[in-house]
Structure formats: structure tokens, C-alpha cells
């Protein structure tokens, strides 16, 4: 497989998803980047903007199995991972897989579950295995979790601890549609939902191949420095209480590779890093109390840092001192 093929796969997926999710090109592209990086997505937005639809469309496009987990406060870890049940006929314990045992998993309103349940999910996300009654079960390939979170209702929720937020590769915000796009949505869903007629465009094997190839994308030393400098600057920023971890730098590094591949390039350019910085880094920051009082958002901090950091290959006049 070549980078061009990866690009064409990505384009096919994006085009397919866009049949359903209209006017959200950026979010869709980020989803594909997340898929190719083998990362997980945190979709943070108000209800009804298409979070669930995005996950389902992605699953349908890839021909992958799809499960939805609606988190509630009374949910137990076994409701996620599954349980071992004693089969009285065979007189053996039998593993009944939970909803996590799917390739695309939508974890809806993840912040409504108790931390215990949350951590069960997050462990599965990180390890790509689940252990029930001492038995370890591998999760299917490709595996991707799309978790959603409602930023408005905080009552009766258990906000994700920062350490766990760090495990999401990207945080995507969908937002409301533009007027014309919303009209287009109404039109497209007049008689039937387009999802029902959606066909898968690529095979799961192709996805796995593409994921393997993405790691071959070349990253120049200058770009690596740029990524690390960006991460380091979040740690020194006065409004930031806790900056981006090394896992964050790594995430940005891999995501940039995936974005380059999505654009058919075999090398990363600074534009990849810039385009992903918000989605990859913002949710990993903990802002200081002063910044929170001033209503400074994480995205704003990242934007500010990106706007102030010279890009590699952007120097064209000799700076003072050579």
C-alpha cells in the first residue's frame, strides 16, 4: 500500500461519512485521523448535533461492528466488559461479552458513569484487552472508542479525571450546523435516513494496513523539535496549571503522521501539526484558577502558543546572530 492509497481510502471514508454528517468536514477528517492513528475520540458537545451518528456512520463505512454504551450512574464495570455466566447445560462458565466487544464503540455521556465504570472502559481503551474472571480477552481489530460528553449538564456527573482524558487522542467538537447545511440535512432525511442505505466502502483489512503504513510517514527533525517545543511551552504557560505530558507530544506526533497520510504525503509538514494542535493538546491542559475565572479556554491557550511559535522551514531571513 502506498500513501496515495491511504489518501484514497481516507477520502472514501470521509466522503461516505459526509453523506450523513453534512458540513462537518474538519470533525470528520479528525475522526479519520484518529482511526488511522489507532486512537480514541472524545466528542464533546451538546446533544443532538450528530455525535452518535458520526460514530455509527464511521462503523458502517468500515463495515465494522458497532456497539453503543449509554452510561448511567448505576452502570457497573461488568456492564461494559461483559460477564461470565454459569451455563447449566455445559456446566461451565461462559463468557458473555459486553458492549465493549465491538470494533467501533460509542460511549455515550461517559461522564455520567461512576469512576469505577469509567476506568474499566479506559483500561480497555488503553490495553485493547479486557480481563474478566482472570481470563484475558483481546478486543477486535480495528478498535476505536468514540466517547461523548455533554459540556452543559454537570449535575450528577463524574467529570473524567485529567489522567484519563489524556488517553483520548483527540477531542472533537461538532458544534451547530450552518444554515444551508442544516437545510440540507432536513432534505436528506425527508423520507429515509441516509444511514440506512449507507454501504461500507473499505474492508477492515485495508484499515489495518493503512494504520500500519501511517507509522512509516517521515517526520523531519525540525518538525519533531516543533512538536516538542509546542508541548514544552504549554508547561511554561502562565495560565496553565498542568501542561501537556510526553504522551501528549507522542499523540501529536502520531496524529500528524496520520494527517499527512490522509493528505497523501509521506512526510509531515508544520501545517499538520498546527491543524491538530487544538484537537490533540487542548483537552490535556489543566488551566489555573485565574485563567478559569477569566474564562480563558484551553483552545485559546493552544491557539496563542501556536501563533507565537516559529515554524521549522519558515525562517527565510537570517535572524540576528546567525
Amino acid at each position, binding site marked *: 500500500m502506498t500513501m496515495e492509497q491511504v489518501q484514497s481510502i481516507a477520502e472514501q471514508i470521509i466522503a461516505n461519512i459526509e453523506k450523513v454528517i453534512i458540513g462537518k468536514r474538519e470533525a470528520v477528517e479528525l475522526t479519520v485521523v484518529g482511526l488511522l492513528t489507532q486512537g480514541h475520540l472524545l466528542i464533546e458537545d451538546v446533544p443532538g448535533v450528530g455525535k452518535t451518528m458520526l460514530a455509527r456512520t464511521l462503523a458502517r463505512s468500515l463495515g465494522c461492528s458497532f456497539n453503543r454504551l449509554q452510561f448511567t450512574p448505576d452502570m457497573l464495570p461488568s456492564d461494559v466488559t461483559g460477564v461470565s455466566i454459569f451455563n447449566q447445560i455445559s456446566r461451565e462458565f461462559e463468557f458473555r461479552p459486553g458492549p465493549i466487544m465491538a470494533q467501533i464503540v460509542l460511549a455515550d455521556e461517559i461522564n455520567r458513569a461512576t469512576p469505577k465504570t469509567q476506568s474499566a472502559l479506559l483500561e480497555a481503551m488503553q490495553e485493547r484487552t479486557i480481563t474478566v474472571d482472570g481470563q484475558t480477552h483481546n478486543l477486535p481489530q480495528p478498535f476505536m472508542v468514540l466517547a461523548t460528553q455533554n459540556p452543559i449538564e454537570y449535575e450528577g456527573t463524574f467529570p473524567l479525571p485529567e489522567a484519563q482524558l489524556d488517553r483520548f487522542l483527540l477531542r472533537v467538537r461538532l458544534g451547530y450546523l450552518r444554515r444551508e447545511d442544516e437545510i440540507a440535512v432536513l432534505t436528506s432525511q425527508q423520507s429515509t435516513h441516509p444511514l440506512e442505505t449507507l454501504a461500507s466502502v473499505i474492508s477492515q483489512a485495508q484499515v489495518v494496513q493503512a494504520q500500519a503504513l501511517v507509522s512509516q510517514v517521515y517526520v523531519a527533525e525540525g518538525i519533531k523539535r516543533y512538536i516538542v517545543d509546542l508541548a514544552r511551552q504549554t508547561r511554561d504557560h502562565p495560565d496553565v496549571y498542568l501542561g501537556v505530558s510526553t504522551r501528549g507530544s507522542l499523540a501529536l506526533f502520531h496524529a500528524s503522521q496520520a494527517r499527512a497520510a490522509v493528505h497523501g504525503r509521506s*512526510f509531515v509538514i508544520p501545517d499538520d501539526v498546527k491543524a491538530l494542535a487544538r484537537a490533540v493538546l487542548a483537552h490535556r491542559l489543566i488551566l489555573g484558577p485565574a485563567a478559569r475565572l477569566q474564562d480563558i479556554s484551553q483552545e485559546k491557550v493552544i491557539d496563542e502558543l501556536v501563533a507565537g511559535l516559529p515554524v521549522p522551514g519558515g525562517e527565510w531571513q537570517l535572524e540576528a546572530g546567525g
Partner: protein
Amino acid sequence: MADSPSKSHLTWSSVDIWGALILLLAQLTAADQLYATGWTNHLEMVITLAFWGTLAGLLLGYSAFGAGIVFVFALLFGLFGIHWQLGLTLLGDHAWLDRMYSVYDDLATVVNELIAQEPVTKSMLFLALMAALFWALSVHAGYVLARSRQPWTATLPTFLTMLVILINGRYVNLSSWFLAFYIFFMLLLAARSFYHSHYQRWKSTVTYLPELLGYDLTRAALVVALVLVVVSWNAPALAESLPPAARIWEKASQPLESVRAQLENFFSPLQNTVLVVYGYYDESLSLGTGQPLSMDPKMTINVPPPPTSGMRYYWRARSYDTFNGLNWSSGSSDSTFVSPQAWPLEFSNNQQGWEAVIQVTSHEKASTLYIPGQPQWVSQGVRMELITYPDDSVDYYAMHAEPQLDEEESYVVRTELNDVTIAELRAAGDQYPAWVRERYLQLPTSMTARTQALAEEIARGAETPYDIAANLTQYLRDNIQYNERMPELPVDQDIVDWFLFDWQQGFCNYYATAEVILLRAAGVPARWAVGYAQGERVTGQGAGLTYLVRERDGHSWPEVYFPNIGWVEFEPTVSQEAIERPLGIVEPDEFDLEPNINPDRDLPIMDDELELFPPTSDIPVPTPVLPQTEPSNTGSLPGSGWQIPWLWVFLPAIGLLLLGLWRQARRSGLPPAPVLVESGLRRLSLPVPRLLQRWSYWAALPRPERDFQVVNRALRSLGHPAEPTETPAERVGRLSAILPEAGHLAQVLLGEYQTSVYSDQEADWVVSSPAARRLRRMVRQAWWQHWLRRLHLQSSNRKD
């Protein structure tokens, strides 16, 4: 397309701008060669005509006119241009009709003179002919190149003309370099035309052409042409430096030399047909308007050191006694052959002083002998131009070797030189013999009263003829400015009067003539001598001194007759040092009156000149050096003609060597030179100049990255400079927004730049460089439009 060019539709792609430019340069080089001969004033008009002629030829060639119409146009333009340029040669504020009248008057004069076989006094006809010639050559060249694309046919006539100029000109070295440049341009033009015509055909047959083919071909042609010309021009000098090669070269060049000799004979009748008279030591000699004199060596002279330090040698070729206000002439004279055995002759002028034996080696074929003082014996058979006086004594004007001297041939002269002191000169008195009074007090009829008055005023208070001469010399040295070039001489004014009172500038001919005329007006007999000044002292042989005399040492000076002493030189020309004569034994009161001794005004003797002359008592008298016993050692001197100074061989050779080394170094992966220099400086912890930093930063960039800088520069020049935090893609996006038509090119550059900077692959400058070039052009246009619009807005705002 080349088969029927006249019918072809004119498009921009069929116009070869570069070819036209090269041709223009070539024609200007040819005109410059003529100008550099300095044959006459106003030759610069030929350059102007060559320029406009080539342009006119090119335009007519590209036009759709038939050959007949083109000829008529060229003729009309040419007539206009030549008249215009000839009219401009007249100084002052005149109406154009008057100018034309004057031009035609001059032309008629010249034609009459030619018919009457008199010396030509005006250069107008020559100028007109040269102007017409160069106009025709240039129009022809431009027309042929544009219409039939035949570079050789276009340039050949001019080339032949240059050859004629080279052979007739006096500064062969300089001229031959112009010719070399012309040949260089010819080769370049041929290569360029070949490429251009084939390019059209390739294009029409849709042959694949690499993007930079034209650039590469032109560069290759440039190098080949340069190497060819440099090598062929330096071949004689190169060959002579290697003994085995010298023998081969001698053989190879023999036919060439004979052809040259033939050509020289063939063209020799041309020499005096249209030129202003310049028979240098003819019986008659005009003062001339000055010419640039070259460094060509004329002769080398071995002499004994003079007995007194103030003495200087003057190599006299000829003396003149009669001045008619315009030309000097040497009266009626006989010519007699004098063999070495016929000496001594009975000269009317018995020079007193010391006897010197000098040996002269001529570096070119010559007949005139250069003899200081009064000759007593010459080793050569000579034809002497002399005059016999009623008392049977003889006086001579000039001596010509018979047979002619060959190159590097020597002759020996025993001559009587004066070493008189000032005291002796003052004591000489004024009892002049009759023959002196008869011949050397003659004055031109055109002499003005104020010249006479000046002579009398300067002579007033002077006690002796010597004082008069010294005062006059000083007067001229103080009041006349030296200038190698003279304007057109006045027709309605006495030249000496004009020189002394109006123009007050000139060169030796004018200084000397003025002094002779003033001396004669004051009653002191004097004559005009021409030849060479002392020249440059080179290493002496044995006890003697050796002088190298070059063409630029050409000189003339006044000689004053003193009874019982003979002819004594004076030096009124400021460009030469003043003559310092020993005082001799003088009465104290006389000393006070001495007008010539003025330490403040007289030029001091240079230190090195003092070294030249050891104390008199130590001087051993050199034995006569005879040519057959002493082989000439002047072979190592640069000869005249085709030999080129070594510098010209070495510089291109070293340049080529460095170029080769540099290319080799670049290929073997060495960093560029400025980077090396910078790192060297840093290692020595020396400050690195900012300019060098910039240069080495630039030089170290791979070419596609350098090409991308066009985008950055474009943004800056369009008033939206790039930020360091902006990615290249963002810059390109911004440029595309400002200049949408540049979007595609900028994208090409971006692709190559990103590949070069961010990927592990190499970018292709063959793609990026042409894009950069095109983008640069586009941005330049946009920039102009931007500024013009701004100017327009400003001016319209002001109106509001």
C-alpha cells in the same frame, strides 16, 4: 519556419531577444574598436550610429516590408542619422542649416585637396565615410539576423572591416582585443541562433524539451566561445613560453605571417587616402590634435651616463626650421647617401661638449634614426636629408637608415652632446652666423601683434639670449595646461595666438612651437625638434645606462642656437620634468639676476633620478658596443603587434582553473565557499560580517529552497511580509489570495520546498527554478501595477 521567414507571421516567440542583444553588443564592440584607434576626433559618433543602425536593421528585418522598401528606409534613416551626427561635431550654437553648410563646406575642401593631391587638412570626409560604413554594416547585420537568421552572414562584413582597422590601426594590441570580443560575440550569436531556430522547429514537431535547455545551451556556448577566443588569442604568447611549442608555432605561423604581410601591403594604399595627414617625421608636419599613445616599445638605447646630473637625453628624429602658421617644414633640402666610411662630415654647426657612443635597438621596422646631439659617425649607411650652405658647410634635418632597419636591429652612433653650464650659455653671446639668422629667425605671416608683444615683454629685462629662453620656458610651464587632446583647430585664427591666449591647453607640439615662435619673435634663433623623450630607464648593461623608449614617449621640444655651442634643448612642456643645468662658474652679481634659478618654481630632481647619475669622476667611459659582438638581449621584451602581455594569459587560465576546482569541490560534497569562510572565521573566533552570514546561509540552502524564497520576497514586495510563525503553505495561500494568477506557480514551489525541507527525499530544482523565474516576473509586474495604482490614487486624491 526558417524557409519562408519573410512570410511568417511575427509573434513574440519568433523574436530572438537574446540574439538581438548579442548582436547589438557585437556591433557596439566593432564601433568601439574604430573609436579606440583615435584616428580623428568625433569618432564616438560611429558608436551611436552602430547602435541605432543595428536596432533599425533588426526592426526592419522583423517587419513585413519587402527588401526594396527596407533598403529605402535604411537609406533614409541613414542619411538622416549621418547628417545629424556630423552636424553635432560642430561646437557652439549654430542653426542646423549653418551646420549642414559647414559640413558640406568641409567635405568640399577635403575633396578638392584630394584631387589636388595635397595633404588633407580636415577629417570630415573620413568621418562621413566611417559613419556611412558603420551604419551600413549595422543595418545589414540587424536585417540579416532578423530576416534570414544567418548569424555568419550578418556579422562577417563587420568582422572584415574590423580586420582592416586592426591592420591599419596603430594600437594593434588594443584593437586585437576588440576583435577577440567580436569573435566571441559571433560565436555566441551563432550558438544562440542555432538554438533559437531549432527550438521553433522542435516546438512545432512537439519534441520533448527539458525546461532549462535554453539556459544550459547558452551557458555551454558562452564557455566554449570564451575558451576558444582566449586560447586562440593567447596561442602565440603561450607557444613562445614553451621552447618545443615555440618551434612548432613558428612553423605553423609562418604561412599566417606571410598572409599578414601580404594583407598589410594590400591595405597600405588605403592608409593615406582618407586619413588626416600624420606623416610623423615627414618634411612637413602639422601640430595635430593629439592621439592616445600606446605602451608599445619602440627602441632600447644603451648610453654612457651623462657627465652632469641635470642632463637629459632627447632622441631627435628630425628638426624643422619653417613654420607657416599651420605646418612645420624643413625648407628645401637635398638627400645624400652617407656610408659609415664617409664620416666625418663638415657640419656648419660644430657642437661642443662630450662625445658619447650610443647603441640603439629598434623594436620595429624603421628607417628614421634617432640621434641626440650632433652625430660624428653612424654604423649604418644612411640617407641624410641635408642642406648645403654657401660656405659649403652642411646641416642635416633627419637621417634614414638605408637599407631599412629590421625588427630588433641595432645601430651605433658616435655623437657630440653638449654638457654646457648656465654660465657658458649666458656667456655665449648673440653673434649668430648668417645661416642661422637666415633660417631660424623666420616667423609665420599670420603671427599676431599680441604674440609679438608677449615675446617682447618676457624678453624685457633678460640680459642674454639664454635668459630669454629660460624665461619663456618658465612662462609656458606656468601658464599653459597640459592636455593630450586638442579640439578642432580654429580656421580663422593664428594657432600660436589661439594656443597662447585663448585655449591655453595643449601638448608638446604646441608648447614647443609656441616657444620657438616666441623666441624668434624675441630675436633668438630656435628650431623645432621631434622624436622621443628619454624614456624609462631599465637595468643598465655594464657601466652604461639603458633606456626603453615607448610609443607614448613621443615628444617634441624647442632647440635654441648658441654661438660656439650649438643647439641646446629646452623643456617648456609641463608633463616633462624641467631641465636642470649646472650653474657653472658665475659672477656673484650675475647669479642674483639669474631668472631661471628659482627653487620654488622649478621641479625638484627626483631621488631616484639622482641615483641614476653617479659622481662624474667615477664614471668609466664605456667602450663602443658594436652590434655584431654583442647579441641583442631585447628579445625578452614584449614585442609590438600580436604578442600579448603575460597577464592576459595568466588571468583567464587561473580563472578557469579556479572554476574547475570549485566545481570539483562542489561535486565532492564540500560546502559552498562562503560557508567554509564563515566556519573558518568562527573557528578562529573572529567576528563574522553580517553580509557573509547572509551569503553563506543563502549559499548553503539547496536550490529548491532558494527558489521558494521568491514567495517570501513576493509577499514582502507586495506589502504583506511573511511571519516566521507562518507555515510555507499558509504563505502560499496568502500570496494566492493577493495574486491569484500566481497561485499555481506558488503551489509548484511549495511542493518542492516542502519535499526539500520536510521529507527525506530530494526536491527537483528543474521543476522549481523555472517556476521561481516565472513567479518572479509575475510579481515584478504586479509590483509595478501596485505602485502605479498608488501613484494614480495619490495624484487623483490631490486633485480632489
